[in-house]
């Protein structure tokens, strides 16, 4: 123990003469001394001060630190702060403008929406649209599912995206109906361009195009789609299709007796009064109807009875 303490002191060049005596008397001390002397002969790399400083001065990082010493401390973090604020602002603006607004009309009634540029969209029952409210001035684009009537304010291109194709206009009134794969676009005012099935078609006022599943051209005779006024209108449609529509709207069962259901019907019926609706459909075709019970109606030809 004593020798160890002396050895430790000797290593620190602090051994007293007495301790040195202890050490020299110790047989192992020679080998320690040998290690010491040999180690001290280690070849060390010589550090050239002048060339070292010069090399340091030549490093680009060194000069950078030198030049911007004072302003760097104050302005760079400041600049970063400002930059961070701008990045945040820009980021949140982009985020907000791309936030979609979703609107779905109730199942039982139509709904009218006014867009930021005072364009108007009337949604048919259960129709759904989505658009970017805050990005509206830059991007007039609406995604539609179901049927809707558009009255577009003049301005940049207004686009309606549907699963079957895109409808774009500059300022006009038109109706878009989508259902499953069906896409029907009716134009009431202005000019509508429809891009569907890789084809671009212009729809002029008074025209109604069915684009999908196949291209069919129909005429319209109203200034607005009939469903807006709670009416269904038909142009040259078989009678049974019209009757089915009445059944759907009034939740009644219609039966026919000795009449030709392939008769073509052009006209409309109201959604608010069953008697009126039945009259407007049967009268032009010289047919009659009788209400058998609350929910059952029979349509027949009075002359053949």
């Amino acid at each position, binding site marked *: 123990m004593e020798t160890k303490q002396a050895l*430790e002191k000797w290593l620190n060049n602090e051994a007293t003469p007495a301790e040195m005596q202890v050490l020299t008397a110790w047989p192992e001390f020679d*080998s320690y001394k040998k*290690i010491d*002397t040999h180690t001290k002969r280690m070849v060390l790399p010589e550090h050239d001060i002048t060339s070292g400083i010069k090399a340091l001065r030549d490093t680009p*990082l060194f000069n950078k630190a030198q030049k911007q010493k004072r302003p760097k401390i104050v302005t760079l973090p400041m600049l970063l702060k400002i930059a961070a604020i701008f990045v945040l602002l820009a980021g949140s603006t982009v985020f907000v403008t791309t936030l979609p607004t979703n609107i779905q009309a109730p199942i039982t009634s139509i709904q009218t929406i006014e867009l930021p540029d005072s364009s108007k969209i009337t949604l048919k029952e259960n129709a759904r649209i989505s658009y970017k409210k805050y990005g509206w001035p830059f991007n007039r684009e609406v995604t539609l599912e179901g049927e809707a009537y558009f009255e577009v304010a003049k301005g940049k291109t207004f686009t309606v995206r549907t699963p079957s194709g895109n409808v774009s206009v500059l300022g006009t009134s038109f109706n878009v109906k989508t259902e499953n794969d069906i896409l029907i676009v009716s134009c009431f005012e202005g000019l509508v361009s429809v891009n569907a099935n890789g084809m671009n078609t212009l729809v002029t006022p008074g025209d109604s195009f069915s684009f999908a599943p196949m291209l069919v051209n129909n005429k319209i005779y109203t200034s607005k789609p009939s469903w807006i006024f709670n009416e269904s209108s038909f142009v040259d449609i078989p009678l049974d299709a019209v009757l089915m529509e009445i059944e759907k709207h009034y939740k009644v069962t219609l039966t026919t007796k000795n009449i030709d259901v392939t008769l073509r019907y052009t006209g409309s019926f109201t959604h608010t009064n069953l008697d009126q609706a039945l009259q407007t459909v049967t009268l032009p075709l010289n047919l009659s109807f009788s209400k058998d019970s609350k929910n059952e109606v029979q349509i027949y030809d009075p002359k053949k009875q």
Partner: protein
Amino acid sequence: MEKQTNICQEQAFNKVYKAQAQSLRNFMFFKTKDTDASYDLVQEAFLKLWQNCAKVTPEKAKSYLFTTANNLFLNTVAHKKVQFKFTQGVKKSQDNNSPEFLLEEKEFGQKLQKALDSLTQLQRTAFLLSRVEGKKYREIAAIYNISEKAAGKRVLDALEKLRETIDNL
């Protein structure tokens, strides 16, 4: 009143460089055993000191340099397998110049190298700082931020381990 010295001033920085570069170089050399690598580490440490000159007072510069260099060293992963070199022993008498003596010297040098390799990096550096650099325990303790006692023990342990290893070779 004396003008406050700042390492950001070139003259002050150069003064620190002149005072510390060689001992820092040795310190890094003990760690890396590599002439070039130790040079790079020293330069890098001084570059860091320059970049942070506003935060480091001249009194703290030395410890800042050693700590930084030590951290930089820890960041370097790959170590080349290099060996220390020793100068020839001083001839005390005619006898010492004999082939036997030279051979023995050479052999001992090789043994010492192997023994130094067997030490941990911390032990080796502490030992070499003490022996080659002649640093006191107090200075070694300051570099590693340990107590003086622990520094002394580190050096002593290293010496004992070296002797053991050499005896067994």
